[in-house]
């Protein structure tokens, strides 16, 4: 099959300047990162060695894993050391999308057979994957000890990655909320469907009860076109601004269409950006990756020069589990 390279057109993909002013402010200080750095600046928690980005969705089936896996591949191709953690334990499928067949997964860590570093496998572009496994109890059913065991194992690997992407399960159970709340950056993937937007809003609302000044990055996935993506984001933004005024500042990270290429890449067990590198959806993901990379560079600068962000895993160990 021959594919004509789609030329990404930022003017076409992104919003008009007037629209951008509302919800696309990369230089804004109203971010969760700044808030966190203040909150923990006086506490003796280890500084972060890598940026942790949690990818979540209120509703299941939004294509969150597809976005996370392809984003990981694209960032790895940029030369970053990327660790993708499939935190949808027991129902994981990142490895399927990446075309990997892991011999072991986190269940081996929970049983004590393997360490976290022993289950990690290398994926496309050189990314590292912590496979979430299948056929055992999901995250919400794990006890403290097992989960802490995993967190400590991951903590040991923190200095081996530049960016750690955590692909979270859908929903707002307490474990997911804790994992989200500790993150340096949040990406919420939703579709333009009303129910999906409602659930994304519910997730954001829950987060505002735990943190202030949250700036989730929103990806509208499975949109028929840009117009629908923009309308969907604007709807989410307007309800958020009305009911969660001053607490949350959603940013439009990008949109991804649902088309044949996406479906085909999943079915062929290859990342979309590798299977169909020339297609429009790949171009959209590339723009999302470039924005994420830009934010990462900014994060590293802040970490180095101004703030000291706490380690995600240390934060989970010390703050969440009180160890």
């Amino acid at each position, binding site marked *: *099959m021959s*594919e*004509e390279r*789609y030329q990404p057109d930022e003017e076409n993909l992104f919003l008009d300047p007037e629209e951008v002013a509302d919800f696309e402010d990369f230089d804004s200080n109203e971010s969760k990162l700044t808030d966190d750095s203040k*909150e923990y600046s*006086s*506490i*003796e928690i280890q500084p972060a060695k890598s940026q942790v980005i949690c990818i979540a969705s209120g509703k299941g089936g939004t294509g969150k894993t597809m976005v996370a896996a392809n984003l990981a591949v694209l960032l790895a191709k940029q030369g970053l050391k990327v660790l993708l953690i499939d935190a949808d334990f027991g129902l994981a499928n990142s490895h399927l999308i990446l075309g990997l067949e892991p011999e072991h997964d986190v269940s081996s860590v929970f049983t004590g057979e393997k360490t976290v570093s022993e289950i990690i496998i290398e994926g496309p572009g050189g990314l590292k994957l912590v496979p979430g496994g299948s056929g055992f109890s999901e995250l919400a059913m794990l006890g*403290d000890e097992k989960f802490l065991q995993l967190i400590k194992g991951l903590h040991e690997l923190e200095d081996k990655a530049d960016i750690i992407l955590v692909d979270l399960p859908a929903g*707002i159970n*307490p474990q997911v*909320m*804790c994992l989200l*709340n*500790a993150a340096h950056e949040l990406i919420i993937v939703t579709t*333009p469907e*009303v129910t999906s*937007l*409602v659930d994304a*809003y*519910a997730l954001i*609302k*829950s987060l505002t*009860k*735990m*943190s202030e000044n949250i700036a989730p990055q929103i990806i509208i996935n499975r*949109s*028929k*076109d*840009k*117009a*629908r993506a923009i*309308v969907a984001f604007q*709807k989410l933004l*307007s*309800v958020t601004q*009305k*009911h969660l005024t001053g607490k949350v500042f959603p940013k439009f990270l990008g949109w991804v*269409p*649902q*088309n*044949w*290429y996406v*479906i*085909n890449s999943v*079915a*062929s067990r290859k990342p979309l950006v590798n299977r169909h590198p020339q*297609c*429009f*959806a790949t171009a959209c993901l590339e723009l999302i990756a470039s924005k994420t990379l830009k934010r990462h560079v900014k994060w590293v600068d802040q970490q180095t020069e101004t703030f000291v962000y706490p380690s995600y895993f240390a934060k989970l160990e*010390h*703050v*969440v*589990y*009180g160890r």
Partner: protein
Amino acid sequence: MISHAVHTKRAVKSIKNIPLSQVIAFIQENPQIIDAGITPVDRDLIIPSVGEIDLIGVSNNNLVMISTFLELNEEHLRRAPSINQWVFENISVLKHTYFQNRITHHFSPKTIFICSRINESAEPLIQFLSDLPLEVYKYEPVVIGNNVSLNLKMVINDTPLKGSCQKTNINNIFTKLPSREEIALTEEEVSEFFEDAEDSFFPTQYEESDAHVPAMENETFFKGPYFS
């Protein structure tokens, strides 16, 4: 460690007139400890020196904290004229939320440490806590006249402080997990999402996502028993 502890009829170990340095050492040796009912003065002195303890308040100044921790509606608190009456009226709710926290928030403290110079206000809470499977200690600072603050400072000056605060815990993620009432969507919020939703998406002549769709018959994905 604290040899002066005595068991009251409520099985609360009352620690009275013990130097603060000993109290701090005791808390340091018991990492899973909850500090309840401390006054602002005590909090300023004890928390920085002890570090790893969880904090809930019981004095009127700390009602917001205790309500967050126990997932109670603040409206309950506003209606209560005093902490005494509030605790008495909400014993069943307190018990329920305590165990709910243990299960869903992995919150399982072993020891509760109550530090209060307002003894009377802490009594209902002590009564409640003594029914739980916890070691409950009640510390009553030495009071010289009415100047408790001065006295505490005098006592604590005998002990070198650790210096840094490991964990303030007011920002503890557990205490901030939202309650069901807090995160439940209102009808107004939901209806706004559905507003104009039916008319929002007319089909357009040109769909970006339809561009570049290849001939499907050439793809293996569409070959097979269900597509032949």
